[in-house]
């Protein structure tokens, strides 16, 4: 069957748009979550929507699963191949189709890089607001599939808040337009449903995003604290004063030291926590609120306050935060990045528990926190070459996510479920809720060929895992396939 299918696929595509040799497939064996690897049956790199449509029709006819892939920067294994499936790479859909400066919109092919949108819009004084840390490399199609965030979410929202229209192909090969260039459209909000759907419902071939006017001025302040709890309190004080910062980030000692040693951002190495708080808007507004912010941070017990004196220093302050993950990566052979979200007021309790678990497991943790919106990224340091350490890390990570759910939060704020957090979905959702998710998938993809096994666990898998919580993380049936 495979040989027939591959022959037909080959007949559909130009020679250079298809890879089947193992050495060519290797770059596609994982995404940003490299702990999981799998070679696909084939990789398709279509150049036109018609080719992508043909691939999907063929896969549908032959019941071959399809995993869509953008830049492969995802952190949850959402683009992990299936051994009997095809990778549909949108990497060649790189064109910025049109920027309408007057209407403040950009029409993009899905393979356009996030940062490239703002670069192209800059000549009109416009930019695209969501800015995930991987924005140099990640693509807009992937951003839509994951509903990516960034450090400016509190004020400017996630991908879902900045989209107008999608053009997608269903597994049956039907081309659909979802949304339009206006602000709303009739019927159920399928635009929201597709955003963050992790390639499970349809394949995106075009994205129309909103662009915003560049703020007149942006100013950042760096506040140091001798206690994490005080930093957390300061965040609440800022919000209470009616200020919505453009960015509000927190880092703990280990993350501060790693970032400082890596990019020399000027962070105080001895602080227990730092807050980076950025205000933007009209010049006058920023000036007024900066004064207010200064007072608030001082009375919340900041041990030092530094306002970036110029644009270069502002970018340097941010460079430390944006490089926090690779910086922590230098402290240890491997690190595992978590992505829970919690109500902000629970931060001190959750950090306390994480530090207890860290001692229990003998694994260090650096914490990077989107403090404005409650999205916590604990980075667990480990060494994959030590037998059993990855397994212990994953178990520790799973406990952190369950802790987030228990605190009234969620297992994933912006990285997606993918394959990584599929088991924790069982602790966040009940069986009827998961069944409803499966029903939503089937409304689009009845034979379940688009990215099967990701994002939403099968009910029998959760039933088996029911024992996991009882037995302290020991899988009851290790012989069951993971996905």
């Amino acid at each position, binding site marked *: 069957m495979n040989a027939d299918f591959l022959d037909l696929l080959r007949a559909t595509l130009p020679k250079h748009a298809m890879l089947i040799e193992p050495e060519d497939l290797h770059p596609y064996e994982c995404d940003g979550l490299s702990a999981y690897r799998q070679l696909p049956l084939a990789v398709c790199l279509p150049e036109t929507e018609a080719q992508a449509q043909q691939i999907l029709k063929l896969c549908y006819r032959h019941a071959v699963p399809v995993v869509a892939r953008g830049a492969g920067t995802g952190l949850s294994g959402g683009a992990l191949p299936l051994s009997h499936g095809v990778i549909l790479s949108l990497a060649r859909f790189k064109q910025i189709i049109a920027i309408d400066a*007057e*209407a*403040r*919109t950009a029409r993009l092919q899905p393979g356009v890089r996030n940062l490239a949108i703002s670069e192209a819009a800059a000549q*009109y004084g*416009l930019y695209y607001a969501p800015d995930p840390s991987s924005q140099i490399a990640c693509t807009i199609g992937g951003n839509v599939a994951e509903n990516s965030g960034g450090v400016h*979410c509190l004020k400017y*929202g996630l991908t*879902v*808040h900045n989209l107008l229209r999608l053009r997608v192909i269903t597994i049956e090969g039907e081309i*659909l337009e*979802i949304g339009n*260039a*206006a*602000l*709303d*459209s*009739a*019927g*159920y*909000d*399928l635009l*929201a*449903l597709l955003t963050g759907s992790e390639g499970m419902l349809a394949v995106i071939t075009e994205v129309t995003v909103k662009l915003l*006017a560049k*703020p007149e001025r942006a100013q950042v302040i760096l506040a140091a604290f001798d206690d994490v709890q005080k930093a957390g309190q300061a965040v*609440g004080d800022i*919000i209470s004063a*009616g*200020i*919505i910062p453009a960015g509000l980030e927190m880092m703990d000692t280990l993350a501060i030291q790693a970032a400082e040693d890596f990019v020399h951002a000027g962070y105080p190495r001895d602080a227990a926590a730092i807050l980076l708080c950025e205000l933007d*808007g*009209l010049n006058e*507004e920023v*000036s*007024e609120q900066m004064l207010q912010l200064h007072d608030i941070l001082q009375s919340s017990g900041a041990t030092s306050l530094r306002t970036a004196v110029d644009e270069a220093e502002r970018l340097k302050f941010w460079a430390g935060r944006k490089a926090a993950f690779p910086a922590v990566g230098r402290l240890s052979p491997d690190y595992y990045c978590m992505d829970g*979200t919690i*109500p*902000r007021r629970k931060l001190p309790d959750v950090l306390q528990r994480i530090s207890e678990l860290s001692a229990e497991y003998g694994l260090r943790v650096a914490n990077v926190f989107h403090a404005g919106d409650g*999205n916590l990224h604990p980075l667990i340091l480990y060494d994959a070459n030590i037998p059993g350490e990855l397994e212990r890390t994953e178990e520790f990570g799973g406990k952190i996510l369950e802790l987030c759910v228990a605190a*009234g939060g*969620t*297992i*994933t*704020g*912006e*990285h997606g*479920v993918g394959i990584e957090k599929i088991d924790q*979905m069982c602790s*966040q959702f*009940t069986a*009827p*809720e998961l069944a*409803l*998710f499966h*029903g*939503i998938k089937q*409304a*689009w993809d009845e034979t379940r060929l688009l990215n099967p096994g990701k994002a*939403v666990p099968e009910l029998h898998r959760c039933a088996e895992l029911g024992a996991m919580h009882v037995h302290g993380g020991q899988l009851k049936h290790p012989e069951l396939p993971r996905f």
Partner: protein
Amino acid sequence: MINELIEKIQHAAAHSQTLAMSGSGSKAFYGGELHGITFDVAAHRGIVDYTPTELVLTARSGTPLVEIEQLLSEHNQMLAFEPPHFGPYATLGGCVASGLSGPRRPYSGAVRDFVLGVGMLDGRGQHLKFGGQVMKNVAGYDVSRLMTGSLGTLGVLLDVSLKVLPLPATALSLRFACDQQAAIQRMNSWSRQALPLSATCWENGQLTIRMEGTQRAIQAAHGKLGGELVANDMAFWRDIREQRAAFFLSPLPLWRLSVPSTAAALKPEGPQLIEWGGALRWLYSDSSPGEIRNAAAAAGGQATLFRGGDKRCGVFHPLPSALLAIQRRIKHNFDPHGIFNPCRLFHEF
């Protein structure tokens, strides 16, 4: 209370009855005709959780909007999407189910942009929860936003968590005399600049805009734009939002045209009022629905028969068949017996 609602749903499912969702009835005029036994959720009310520093409020769906807005304003916060009430007892459930937003929508976002989580009953009478009380949450499909604007056709909203925002320090409204085309151009070109716009409206040769922010910022923006100060502007924007302004007194059918903000002045005969920086055009007209829908579609948008007129033409802009099929399957997944608000959204389900 929830158990009673579940029993009613299960009874309706077992006896092939249909249920007509109702809060205060303030938005009963909107959407297709209601059929079936009234399913009243107004008694399921009360604010469940509100911590101002979290910027999140959770309330039961029968909670009156005025009660929520009152509590928020005591803490200098607001529902930033400025929902229209269309009645003194409008509920949170009706606000979310109708998905209607007010003047601040293009500048702050729509209801769906602020919905963080819902508790609901589906057509099997199952109590389900999606999303939560946090602003970033990508676990599972975004059912909370799918429920927003679904007009009670997918399930019964029990409670909703919303993101809320601080009230702006000051607001100021300005008025300019200009024709429709000039107004459309100005609204768009001002949006391209970093101005603190929070509402725009053109009608009958007058463009009115609202700006919000800190005192000095608003003054600076006023200096830049000029224009005549509008006295008692809170009442002006409330009357636009609630459709109590003189424009909304016509006996003709009222059409709501959602179009790209830059769309040139639309052709159909009849008085028009423009909101949302050009993206929303209200039209009183007895032209044929086909003519109005074609004009909206030609401009890249859609037309809804908002009030009055003959609903047999379909209230909402018709969907291409493939999209309608997906919507029908989604409806079936939530409500397999077809008991909730049949034909409120589309004739087909």
